[in-house]
């Protein structure tokens, strides 16, 4: 093994005997295009609605819920697909998210949510991950399409205009703080509020025991 490594290192270090400099340069360039292009094509392939809904976990649960919402069917016919909201568009962040997604591959292989019941049980946790991600990046994926600068609040309803003026333009809240559950159904929020305040729950159950 060590001998093999030493021989390989030796071959790499020495100048080429058989191949011309032109061949090696051009060959390196062409192979670079092929491999880099191939990598990006494969990456883009995993970034499509068809890929996401290729598994029944997504197709039968979240994708069905998306269909009647405004992000799938609307007056102007612009559609947001899965990766538009769930994968960052910028390359570095996209790669980071794709690396995180290896956990989802694990989940797929071991069937973490392979039945409707398992999905519903896990839904609160999954939703909270997405909410936390969007809170942390200031709703970046929302803002890829909906920028506060291009928002004409005179064309919004009074209620919406007031809310955006008070919370969005001041930066007090971000899109996801108010617009949870617009593209998929909400998990059990009662359970969520209990999970958010474990000390309060512990204290309360202390009182109840007395």
């Amino acid at each position, binding site marked *: 093994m060590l001998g093999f490594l030493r021989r390989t290192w030796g071959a790499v270090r020495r100048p080429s005997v058989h191949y011309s400099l032109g061949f090696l340069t051009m060959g390196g360039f062409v192979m670079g295009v092929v491999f880099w292009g191939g990598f990006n094509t494969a990456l883009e392939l995993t970034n499509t609605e068809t890929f996401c809904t290729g598994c029944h976990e997504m197709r039968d649960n979240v994708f069905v819920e998306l269909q009647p919402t405004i992000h799938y069917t609307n007056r102007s016919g612009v559609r947001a697909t899965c990766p538009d909201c769930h994968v960052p568009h910028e390359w570095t962040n996209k790669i980071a998210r794709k690396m995180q997604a290896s956990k989802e591959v694990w989940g797929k292989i071991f069937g973490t949510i392979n039945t409707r019941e398992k999905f519903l049980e896990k839904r609160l946790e999954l939703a909270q991950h997405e909410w936390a991600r969007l809170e942390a990046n200031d709703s970046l994926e929302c803002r890829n399409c909906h920028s506060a600068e291009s928002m004409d609040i005179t064309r919004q*309803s009074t209620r919406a205009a007031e809310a955006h003026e008070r919370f969005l333009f001041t930066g007090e809240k971000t899109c996801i703080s108010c617009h949870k*559950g617009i593209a998929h159904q*909400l998990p059990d929020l009662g359970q969520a509020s209990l999970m958010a305040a474990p000390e309060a729950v512990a204290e309360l159950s202390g009182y109840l025991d007395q």
Partner: protein
Amino acid sequence: MKRQTALIAAILAAAIGGAALAQQSVATLRGGTPLADNADPMVIPKVVNTDLRQVRNYPEQPPLIPHKIDGYQIDLNANKCLTCHSREAIEISQAPMVSITHFMSRDNQFLASVTPRRYFCNQCHVVQTEARPLVENGFVDIDSVLEYVKNQQGGSD
């Protein structure tokens, strides 16, 4: 035999005539469209989205919803209406708070939040559309009735 035939003919004529008459006099939502065809659907009316509270026609009337509620989720997991109209939310949303009557259980106990029997908002509260009523409505509210009675009595109580 001849008389029987005449009778049957008379009954048939009456039945056909009656059917024709009924077709002319009874207005249905289908209009004059034959059964085998599809009528042109009516235009879907727009939902009133003014955010202005509307008057209640009688004191017990559940207040109308003056905004769109498309896709609002109200089920075991979440109640979209209460994200603005609950007791805790109104400071942020500045929306009218859900009435305290909705906190009372069927045993007349006031609970900490909306009781399950009053949880499904759009069982009583509805949006309004700009649709023309299919049937004319002659409802007048109690003030108009009192005014009318007062006028009938010559202005004295």
